[in-house]
């Protein structure tokens, strides 16, 4: 929360109340109009003062690092550092599955064993997709717009994003990564890979999206994903 913006908004509302009162007593409608307008202004500032400011973000970043390192330890202990990452659809849920076999479907959230390989399955909740429809189509322009809206505009994870589709393979080009998440992209649970793959899995309603390759460029990352592969 931003206390200064909150107090500023509150002050504006108090001023608008006095102005409205004076306008009512003197019968000048334009004063009441100005007061109403100031009331809207103050109300907006009060609402926006509730948006977390940077120190809260710093606390979140530190907490995320703790969680990331503990997840990486689990992946190391399961000998899954060189494993395949696949977003698998299980009912209405999406799971990020780390396993030696590509895209196992007989998995449950958590740690387990399937097809002769240990796995770690993490339930994924994609931020902000409720405003978009899971059409099941693979229209490149629509998918690229959705990826850009969520990753660049809403989450601010990068400055620019591009997408090409070849058959059932998606190439996502992400440029201008933000500093704090750039450090996280070195971990197995890479936020750029997870969020991108999950959005594509949700939008296309694919049964699975496998991360084929991740290439780091000087300013970003290129992620290649393939849809529809399932291990029996």
């Amino acid at each position: 929360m931003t206390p200064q913006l909150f107090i500023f908004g509150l002050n504006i509302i108090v001023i608008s109340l006095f102005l409205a009162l004076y306008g009512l007593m003197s019968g000048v409608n334009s004063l009441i109009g100005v007061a109403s307008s100031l009331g809207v202004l103050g109300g907006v500032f009060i609402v926006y003062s509730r948006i977390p400011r940077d120190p809260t973000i710093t606390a979140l970043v530190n907490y995320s690092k703790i969680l990331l390192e503990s997840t990486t330890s689990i992946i190391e202990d399961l000998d899954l550092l060189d494993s395949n990452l696949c977003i698998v659809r299980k009912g209405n849920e999406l799971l990020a599955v780390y396993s030696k076999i590509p895209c196992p479907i007989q998995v449950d959230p958590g740690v387990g064993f399937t097809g002769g390989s240990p796995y770690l399955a993490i339930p994924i909740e994609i931020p902000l997709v409720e405003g978009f429809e899971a059409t099941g189509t693979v229209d490149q322009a629509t998918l690229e717009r959705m990826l850009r809206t969520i990753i660049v505009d809403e989450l601010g994870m990068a400055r620019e994003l591009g997408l090409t589709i070849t058959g059932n393979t998606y190439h996502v080009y992400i440029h201008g990564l933000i500093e704090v998440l750039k450090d996280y992209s070195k971990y197995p649970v890479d936020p750029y890979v997870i969020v991108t793959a999950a959005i594509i899995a949700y939008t296309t309603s694919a049964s699975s999206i496998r991360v084929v390759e991740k290439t780091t460029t000087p300013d970003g990352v290129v992620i290649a994903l393939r849809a529809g592969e399932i291990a029996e």
Partner: protein
Amino acid sequence: MQSRIVLFTLMFTSLVVISNITLVFLNESRIDVYISLSILAYYVSHALSRPSTTYKPVRILNIALFVLFAVIVAYRVYEVFIS
């Protein structure tokens, strides 16, 4: 994010002040005109600066202001039909 909120605050305040001064000079006495122009100023500032759409209170505010604007417009259209 913080710089976007600062930009939004400056833009919104400027637009509200300019619109209010203009309406006062035009001797506008209809209160809903002031409110609807403030709401328009909010959406213009929001679209240009894009401070946030992720936080629930901001989403509720967006919907509430839109509903208020729609009610004002509907009332004025109704008045036109009645007259």
